[in-house]
């Protein structure tokens, strides 16, 4: 699978939280050949089912893979007229980093898609106290070079605005672009589904591209409730190492996916994933979270009677900017790890999770 090409398609397709129609359509087309059914639910998540290919329990156990497809974006808050031209005032959707919004290219999803730039007064024309600070959203505007009449007829308050950025190829099989958080994980799930075509598995796989993670983990809560899987894995990005980054919560780009430990993660699930990676001789990192993980796992975990949940994370630099960077290799590895893990799921898996046998087995091995 050409992961660069995959990421190019995925990252360059708009999908602001709450307006995931376009990205959902792209993912649906990508996953269609690998799955048996595919639907969208009321909140916009895309839910694909791949039936078990090896006889086991009836009905089969089910594992849910959740990778959110939404991205941080902007929304039109007001339309302003100046000398006959129309400008847009905006508000952020999700954790948009205000230090890097000025100067970006955007697409305004009005009656039709319109390209614009995010402008602001030059620093020297701003009040002194604002000159060396990140921008206030109140000072930013979107300029499409259009007369106010056109703006008023094409755009209304509440329209979504997505960032526009082509995927850049960097050296050493790395790429930089927008919304690699979390299209890198969508790509990993795609790799996993492709790998499973040649493999047999007794568990049913529910692959979900969740909606509105960046705003409230919406899709994680609702899909896990509706699907009621026996186990779940959230696939998301984590902080990559780089100059100035600290040692303890960051991971080398190209150093393999990170497996998360912390309150949102079932340690049995973590151990099983780690054991799979070791069998594959696949390099992994271990990361920790102390409270909420900031991923879909937080929502998946408490749905219904609770779901044993794990997190597989892809190291990424410059999170929530237009130059988010990942190593293609990590995406591919995350996908392979998921596939291998699913192939290894058997009838005894849940029992082992419940009793902690898995850890004992591991100990006796070592």
């Amino acid at each position: 699978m050409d992961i660069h090409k995959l990421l190019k398609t995925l990252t360059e397709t708009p999908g602001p939280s709450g307006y995931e129609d376009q990205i959902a359509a792209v993912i649906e087309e990508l996953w269609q050949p690998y799955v048996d059914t595919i639907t969208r639910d009321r909140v916009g998540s895309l839910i694909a089912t791949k039936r078990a290919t090896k006889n086991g329990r009836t009905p089969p156990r089910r594992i849910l893979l959740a990778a959110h497809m939404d991205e941080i974006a902007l929304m039109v808050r007001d339309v302003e007229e100046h000398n006959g031209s129309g400008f847009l005032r905006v508000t952020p959707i999700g954790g948009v980093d205000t230090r890097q919004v000025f100067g970006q290219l955007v697409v305004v999803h009005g009656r039709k898609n319109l390209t614009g730039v995010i402008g602001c007064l030059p620093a020297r024309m701003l009040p002194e106290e604002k000159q060396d600070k990140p921008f206030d959203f109140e000072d930013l505007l979107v300029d499409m070079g259009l007369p106010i009449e056109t703006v008023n007829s094409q755009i209304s308050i509440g329209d979504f605005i997505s960032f526009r950025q082509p995927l850049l190829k960097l050296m050493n099989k790395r790429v930089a672009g927008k919304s690699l958080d979390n299209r890198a994980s969508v790509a990993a799930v795609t790799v996993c589904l492709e790998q499973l075509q040649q493999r047999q598995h007794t568990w049913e796989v529910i692959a979900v591209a969740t909606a509105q993670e960046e705003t409230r983990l919406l899709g994680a809560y609702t899909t896990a409730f509706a699907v009621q899987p026996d186990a779940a894995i959230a696939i998301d990005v984590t902080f990559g190492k780089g100059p100035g980054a600290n040692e303890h919560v960051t991971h080398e780009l190209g150093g393999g996916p990170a497996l998360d430990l912390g309150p949102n993660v079932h340690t049995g699930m973590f151990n099983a994933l780690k054991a799979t990676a070791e069998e594959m001789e696949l390099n992994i990192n271990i990361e920790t979270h102390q409270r909420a993980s900031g991923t879909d796992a937080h929502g998946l975990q408490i749905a219904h009677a609770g779901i044993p949940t794990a997190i597989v994370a892809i190291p990424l630099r410059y999170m929530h900017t237009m130059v988010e960077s990942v190593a293609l290799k990590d995406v591919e590895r995350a996908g392979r790890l998921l596939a291998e893990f699913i192939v290894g799921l058997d009838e005894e898996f849940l029992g082992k999770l419940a009793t902690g046998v898995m850890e004992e087995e591991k100990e006796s091995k070592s």
Partner: protein
Amino acid sequence: MNNLIKKLVEAYGPSGFEDQIRALIWPEIEKYADDISVDALGNLIAHKKGDGSGLKAMVAAHMDEIGVMITHITEEGFCRFTNIGGVYPHTLLGGRVQFADGRVGIIHSDRITDRSKIYGLDKHFIDVGATGRDDCPVQVGDAAGFHREFVANGKMLSAKSMDDRIGCVVAIEAMKRLKQTPHDVYFVFSVQEEIGTRGAEAAANHLDPDVGIALDVTLTGDVPEAIPMAVSLGKGTAIKVKDAGMIAHHGLVQLMKKRASEASIPYQLEVLTGGSTDARSIQIANGGAAAGCISIPCRYVHSQSETVHADDVENSIKLLVELLAKPIEL
């Protein structure tokens, strides 16, 4: 309609203490519902049956209001208190509260030594006229709502707890006017919205609706030095696109716009940067619902003179009826 508004806004009902306001709403809707029930949290749920061809819709307007709760009574008989919901100290001085038994207390603060400062809630007290702890008729744990008369300045309607009794009025009026609907509609007069949309959360878990519509107030950008916001009083009902707690269902927003245009109902689009509503809870309940909000623009929210415009109220009712009377395609 002003009589109904006056009756509801002047009633007592801080979050968690909604018995009295529920007892007032019940007889107003009795005739128009197929079934009425009260759940364990105190939500008043009125079911209007559909013809079987539509969706299950939950409409939520919260009955509760912000208020205070007594935490301590001083030896001299003054009542210290904490907030129930978003009560801000700069709205309090010289104001009045009413307790469940109708007793009224006066709010003031410790001696102000620096007039440029706003004192915290802990520096305020309520004077109910007691001379000491022993004859103080109020107890620790007693809750009070604000006490303020309804005023109509022409079409500008001011009172305490317009948030969200005006939403209750919209729901009640819509129930009266909605003769037929394809949808199974559950009108929920919810509890405990002001402390985290708790009533709606329980009701949505129980009802499991396909569509959720909250009726609540929203802020406006039309007063001096207001937050930048393209919503004004008197310019129409507000269709929520986004607030601090959720992004409304895109398809539902488009449908609301369409229904408003078809029926020539003036509307504004709401992008609210602070606060949220019951719709936030409905959206994420169970397997999720298409959630949105018909908002009533309101000035001075969470003060004792929350102000709405009669035309916006009327247009909100009209839009809700239009929406519920016709098919909902998302």
